[in-house]
Structure formats: C-alpha cells, structure tokens
C-alpha cells in the first residue's frame, strides 16, 4: 500500500494553509512603569510617539500606570483587569534593580505575559542607555519557528509596521532538532539518509514559504502600505534570530510566548526576551 501513502502525501502537500488577514483592533493601550508619575508621563509620551502607527485608522485610548499605583503583582493585575487594555507597554524588572543583569525579565513581566491574554510590548529599560533610538516601527520582524497557520503573529506584526515600512516574516527551523533526527535516520538501514534529508529539508521550508506567499498576497489585497520580506531558513534558533534582527536593524520584534501545554513562557521566547534587550519586543 505504499502508493496509498504516496498519493495521500501528494494531496496533503497540496492542501495549503492560507493566511487570513484580520485587522487587529487595539482600542486602548496601557503603559505600565515603576517610575514616579511625571517621569511615567514622559515615558508614556515616548511610547506613544514610537507607536504612532497604531493611530492609523483607529482612535486609541492611552492610559498610564505609574510606580506609585502598585507594589505587588496582584495589584498590577487588578489595575489591568480594571482597564482591560488591548495592549500593555512596559519594560523589564519593574520595581527592581535587576535590570542591570540580563538574566530574567523580572517577576512582573513574567506574570503579565502569561496571566493575561493581552499582548505585552516590552521596551528597553529607561535607565539602560539604549544603543539605538526607539522612534518608529519602520522595520518590524515577526519571527517564529513554525509560522504556517500563525495568522495572529502576522496580523499583529502587520498592524505595528509603519506606513511604507518593511515587515520581515522570518521562519527559522531549528537545525539542532533536525540534525538529531537525521542522526537517528542515519542509523536505520532501510531509510536512505541523503534522500530523507533533502526531502524533509525541502518540504519543511516549502510549507513556510507557501504560507508566507499567501501572507504577501493577502496583505497586498488588503491594501496595507508596507513591504513584506520573507525569510525561511534553518539555523541555531537564538543566534539566527539575533542575526536577523541585527542585520536588518529591526525596530520591533514580534513573537509568540503562549504555549498551550505549559504555564511558563513558550520555549524559545523566554531566552530571546531576556537576551534581545536593545529593541522593543511584542510578546503575543
């Protein structure tokens, strides 16, 4: 019955997952800081300027939470619950000096990304001298290790890309996991290792390319004023992600953090969120 497999595979491969453009409506933005009220207002102003793209076709309600309004995670969660924002903007290590050590996100952001369904925009810490100006979102990178079917990631990334800006969609397949499987395949005499490598590699990347192709078509059809760049590659996740961000001088990195199978942040998102500290991150 190998031919049944053969044709079933052909038809499964032909059954594509198309991207559906669904404009993201944000409604209101809540800027959360641990700074005193006046400084918090300044920070909120800078955030608003950075996210001016959000005003495109939508009247955004902006609110700010300053350091005096909360001192514990439950208090902050209560404030968020009361405001019900469409987006939270904050930075790492609220009410903490640990921002000097790039090993965690701090307890507030850790909980915020998982305890609420609201996307969190994590900005560089105000006390940390930024290597680059955080002024606009001309270059937005939406990145994942499995983009096929991830409409939300693309829709959010598109929403944050400034007019005439560039939206980079990057799908980086984990080369270490791939090599691990190839090592096992190489020990099974009945499987042709070279054929399997070539075919799996090809298929893996092609599915992502096809999906991105459908993203490009759908976004163009929707008339969004942006250019889309597609990157489909294999690599060491963290280093490849950093390379893509650095080479393009990205203004914003968009990525998923939720994982249905666990309470903690999605596998790769945490180290990225910890290590990529010089640019804003939108954690979905």
């Amino acid at each position, binding site marked *: 019955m190998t031919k*049944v497999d053969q044709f079933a595979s052909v038809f499964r491969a*032909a059954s594509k997952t*198309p991207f559906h453009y669904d404009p993201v409506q944000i409604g209101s933005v809540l800027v959360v800081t641990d700074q005193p009220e006046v400084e918090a207002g300044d920070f909120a102003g800078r955030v608003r300027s950075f996210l001016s793209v959000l005003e495109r076709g939508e009247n955004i309600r902006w609110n700010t939470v300053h350091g005096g309004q909360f001192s514990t995670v439950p208090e902050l969660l209560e404030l968020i619950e009361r405001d019900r924002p469409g987006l939270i903007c904050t930075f790492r290590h609220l009410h903490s000096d640990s921002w000097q050590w790039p090993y965690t996100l701090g307890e507030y952001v850790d909980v915020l990304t998982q305890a609420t369904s609201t996307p969190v925009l994590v900005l560089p810490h105000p006390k940390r001298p930024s290597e680059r100006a955080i002024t606009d979102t001309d270059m937005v990178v939406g990145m994942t290790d499995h983009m096929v079917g991830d409409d939300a990631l693309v829709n959010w990334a598109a929403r944050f890309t400034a007019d005439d800006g560039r939206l980079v969609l990057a799908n980086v397949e984990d080369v270490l996991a791939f090599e691990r499987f190839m090592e096992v395949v190489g020990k099974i005499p009945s499987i042709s290792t070279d054929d399997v490598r070539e075919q799996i590699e090809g298929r893996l990347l092609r599915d992502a390319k*096809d999906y991105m192709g459908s993203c490009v078509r759908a976004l163009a059809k929707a008339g969004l004023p942006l250019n889309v760049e597609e990157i489909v590659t294999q690599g060491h996740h963290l280093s490849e992600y950093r390379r893509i961000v650095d080479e393009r001088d990205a203004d914003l990195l968009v990525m998923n953090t939720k994982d249905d199978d666990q309470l903690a942040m999605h596998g790769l998102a945490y180290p990225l969120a910890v290590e990529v500290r010089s640019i804003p991150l939108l954690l979905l």
Partner: protein
Amino acid sequence: MRIAQGGGAQALEHIVPHVPFGTTMLFAAILAAMIMSLALEEKLHAKKSLIVGLFAMVSLLLGAILLPMPFGPYSIGGHDIAMPVYIPAVDWGVITIILGASLFVDVTSRSGLFTWIAIRLTKASSGDPVRLLWAYGVMTVVFSAVLNNVTAMIIVGSLTAVSLDRLGRREMLLGFLLTEGLLTNIGGLLTLISSVPNIIVGTAADISFVSFFMRSSPFVLVATVITIVMGMRLFDIRGLPDAEARAAAVELVSGFDENDGIESPGFFWFAAAMLILFIVAIATTSVLPYVSDLGMGFVAIGFALIMLVRYKHDVDQFYRTVDWDLLGFFGALFVVINVMEHAQVLALIGIGLERMIALGPMLGTGTVMVATSAFSAVTDNIPLAAMLSKIIAGIPMADGLVRPPTDPLWWAVIFGANLGGNLTPIGSASTLVAVTIIHRQGLRLSFMGFVKKAAPFALVQIAIAVVYVLWIL
C-alpha cells in the same frame, strides 16, 4: 500464441490426449485448492504470486509425471527452438500490457497530471458534498478506465480522505470511499485495458479496443449515474444548506494548490500529451499497420520506455514500483491453467458450463453471468476469467464457426467477472484498496459490514448488466 511442437509439428492447443478420469480429478482438486488459497490470501499472510507459484510448481511436476505434456523443442517460423514448457504456457501479450501500462501510469503520475486533474475537480465542486460525490464518482470511473481500477481507487480515495478532512465532513468519508470503490469496477468495464479480466477475455475473444468501448460505454454511463444516486441516498450525502456554508466550503477548497505536485511544467504538458497519444494508440492498435502485428503490449511498453527517458538515470526507482507480485501471479496462473488444460480439467468444467449454456440463449447466458458474478465475489476474478475464456473458446458454436467477439457469452463473463467484485471486499483488488483506505482512516468496517452496504449496489448493477447483455447489447 500459436507454437507448434517440434518434430511432429503439433499445435499445443490441439493436443487432446486421453487422460484417466482419476488424474483429471486430482488436478481439479489442485485447482480448487489454489482458488481456495487465493480466497484465503489474507488469512494465509502470503502473496498471490507465491501461492499460485507453488501450485504452478506442483502442477508442472505432477503434469510431467502423469500427463503427456508437450515438452519442446517448439517450431516457430520453421525453426526448432528449445524452451521450457512453462514459457509458451504464459500469455505474454497480457503480461506486457500490464507491465507497460503500469510503468507508463507510474511515470506519468510523477508529472503531477492526475493530482492536478483531481484537485481541479475538487475546486470545481466548490466543496459541496453532493457535487463532490459526482466529481469524484465520475473521476473514479474515468481513471479506472484510462489507468486501472486499483490506481484510480488509490488516487481518488487518498484525495477524498484529505479533502473531506479539510471540509470537516469526515462523517461522510465511509460513504464516499465505498461508493468510489464500487465505481472502480464500473469504470473497469469501460475499455479493454481497464481491468485484467477485460484484457484476458478480450484477448481470447479478439475484441478490439474500440468495439469494447462502444459496447460497454452505455452500460457504464447508466450504472455510474445509478450508483452515485444510490450512494447519495443510502449514505445520506446532502448538499450544503445555505449560502454561508457554501461560501465557507469554497474558501476551504480554494486552499488546495493543484500545482504543488508539478515538478516541471514542461514534463507536465508532455505527460498530458503522451496520455492522450497512449489512449489513441491503444484504441487504434488493431488497425495500425505493423503495430497491429506487435499488439497492445508493444504499444504499452513502448510508451512506458518513452516516458522513462525523462528519468533516464533513475529508471530503477520505477522498476521497484512495478507490482511484481501481480505479474508473478499472472505468469504462474497461466502455467497452472495450461496444465489444467492438459489434464482435461478445463474440459470437465466446460461440460458444466455447456449445460448452463444449453439452457438457452437468454437463460443460459444470464445464468453464466450470475454464476460468474457469484464466483468472482468470493474468489479472484482473474483466474476465473482466464479459465472461463479458455473454456468458452473451446466450446463450439451450434454452426461450428468460431465464437465471434459479439457473442453475449464473452460479455456475460466480462460483466460478471467485473461486477461480482462489488459483492464482497475481497471480490476485486480495487474494493480491497477501498477497504484498506477505510481502515487506515480509522473507520470500522467488517467483512459482513461491507457486504451489507455493498450488496444493494452490486445486485442492482448485476441486474442492469443482465438486462443490458441479454436484451440491449
């Protein structure tokens, strides 16, 4: 194949020596045991080629001891040629048609042509279950006719599982797959090369491709429509209720990319042209000068070789995909039947068949068709067709002339052997493929479950066929 035995220049088919009745009965028992073993193939966990190969070996050995077998050398074109007795026993015309056609279809399918057609039809149906059943039903019949019924079932069955999954209509999968399985044997009746019994009986009766098509197509058309309508009713396959559901279905099927399987547009169009040429060449083999002498097997192998040029460095991958079990099975089967002929077993069965025929042109032919259907439902229809065609060829007409290709008896065997396969899951290779796909999809269907669901279809089809062969053909 007309080969005369060396020295005495005696044609193989004319040797009718005296064989003791006990010896004939011994060989009849061997034949019955082989047919039983084939019916129990799944239980024995053995391939057909091995089962029949072992019976061929035993038959040959006993034949050499007990029967006056026509061992060589054989005189061909005035030259004495030494070859083992089991070589001229095989109908190489049938073997080459099957080998060439399966290779041709395999290479052509790599072009993405068949999947392209299948997906275009899926999109044309707009994802509506009723339109999808019509599209897949007609596609099953056409693919069965042009390719072969096993390949047709594999292509359409695989697509059905994927597309119904995508449309969220898995509850209809069993009905779709069963209807398609039953339609493969209808499509298998459309042309001379659509099924092996057609090739065997058609070759024995000297029926041309065009004549076969002209005679069988009206029945195929009517039976296809009735089977699809019955499938809709019995399996409760209904159209989409409203515009919203229809729009959602269109959106879902639009996600299929018919071009995904096309590696090279050039090869795709070449394959499409070659497929049309192949059908034309097969259809006109009997009237083409020189080619008619070489036969359909030559045409099939020739087209396969031309297609293989595209993969000239990797032809071995296609040799590996050839169904050697099927070819080995045919080879061994022809040997067994040849020995049975020498042992007078076929003559013995022929006496029983003659009694049926003696019931009259109507009742006799109808009885032959129903009996053929019943036998092919429980055992392989290929040995049945091979045996019956040989026996019928040996039964003289009332006027002593050769039985013409239009004789209803040939058609009774052709229709019976094909349609009987719809009564049980083991009745034909394509229904077996349908059941295999059903089980792979995690659906439960027992042997008796299949019989209960398929019997209404098969009985209606056989009834229509009896009327068609006796009164219309």
